[in-house]
């Protein structure tokens, strides 16, 4: 319906090495996706933007990296062989890890979204999401992390 269609935002390409969209240099993020080619390519694009991405191709691998404290921001796929994304989310919540989770899925239903948000996911993106949307979600996650950081005051 013409009145309803909205032009989606344009693609987020790197315009220069000193792109001002860069976030805190080296911000670690964990990409959890069983589609290895997708995860690796996204990791490469994030690396170009100053992030330190880590990749896990299964839920089990993701939890092991979380336990090692590689990152406090996770981009999580829902449907994966073995342990699925919702189970990863449940275990993160149970383990009280300091983690901000962004769901990125090609499979999720509206019920999944409600459930994932109720389990603490701060954003729910659908594949294939534009990189700009992923970066915005990282910013939101970083803000949440900073909000929850203990504030040190001079005495």
């Amino acid at each position, binding site marked *: *319906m013409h009145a309803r269609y909205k032009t989606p935002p344009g*693609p987020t390409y790197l315009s220069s*090495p000193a792109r001002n969209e860069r976030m805190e240099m080296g911000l670690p993020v964990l990409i959890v996706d069983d589609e290895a080619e*997708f995860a690796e390519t*996204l990791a490469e694009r994030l690396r170009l933007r100053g992030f330190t991405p880590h990749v896990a191709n299964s839920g089990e691998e993701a939890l092991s990296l979380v336990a090692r404290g590689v990152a406090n921001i996770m981009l999580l796929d829902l*449907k994966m062989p073995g342990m699925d994304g919702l189970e990863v989310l449940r275990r993160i919540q149970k383990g009280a890890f300091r983690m901000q989770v962004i769901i990125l899925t*090609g499979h999720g239903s509206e019920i999944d979204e409600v459930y994932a948000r109720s389990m603490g996911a701060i954003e729910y993106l659908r*594949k*294939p999401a534009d990189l700009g949307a992923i970066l915005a979600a990282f910013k939101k996650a970083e803000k949440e992390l900073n909000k929850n950081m203990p504030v040190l005051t001079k005495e």
Partner: protein
Amino acid sequence: MAADELAFFGKIAAGVTHELKNVLAIIRESNGLMADLIALAKDSPFPQRERFLRSVDRIEDQVRRGVDITSRFNRFSHSMDHASANIDLNEIVAQTVALTCRFARLKEIELLGTPSEGPVTLTTSPFRLQMALTKAIEACIESMPGKGTIRVDVPGNPAGPELTIHCETREGSVLDLKEVVTASRPWLELEQLVPDLGIGIGWRQPGAGITLSFSTDEVNEPEQ
């Protein structure tokens, strides 16, 4: 097709569209990476830079198109999940217009939908309602004498759950196609769906279009 067969078809189709989204995600990221790399090398000579970037943009455009098509087909597939559901008529019109605009385009007809201000809800079979609306649109496409526009409008309240379909010439004159439309094959098929869906079909004064109004009662499930 029986309800369980429809649900099976819907499940398989939904699974395929989900997988296609993964494929599109990989294409989008790989294309984005190519664009990033060429941007990083902006001071290095690259004789075909403009052509390369045009191709990158073209791939991104096609990914967007693919996402739109797969998302709509995915929603269509999920419409088979439940024999009856609460739906917003605007959503059904938007979905059906998007999925059938190709049929119109082949006859150089523009297919447009206009939503109402607020949602217009009713309980019905989303799949069968889309099928009925598609039949009505097909009947109009077949009946149009040449290039033109078909408008599917949801007037909203106080009209309630109803929509109107107008066939117009390119210049905007409304066509009175009642005789041709009602004799067309899709229209006869639509009339068979009408009793189960609680649809009332009305023709406004000559040239003012077709009105499909929907019962707000639960739909009758067709006998298997």
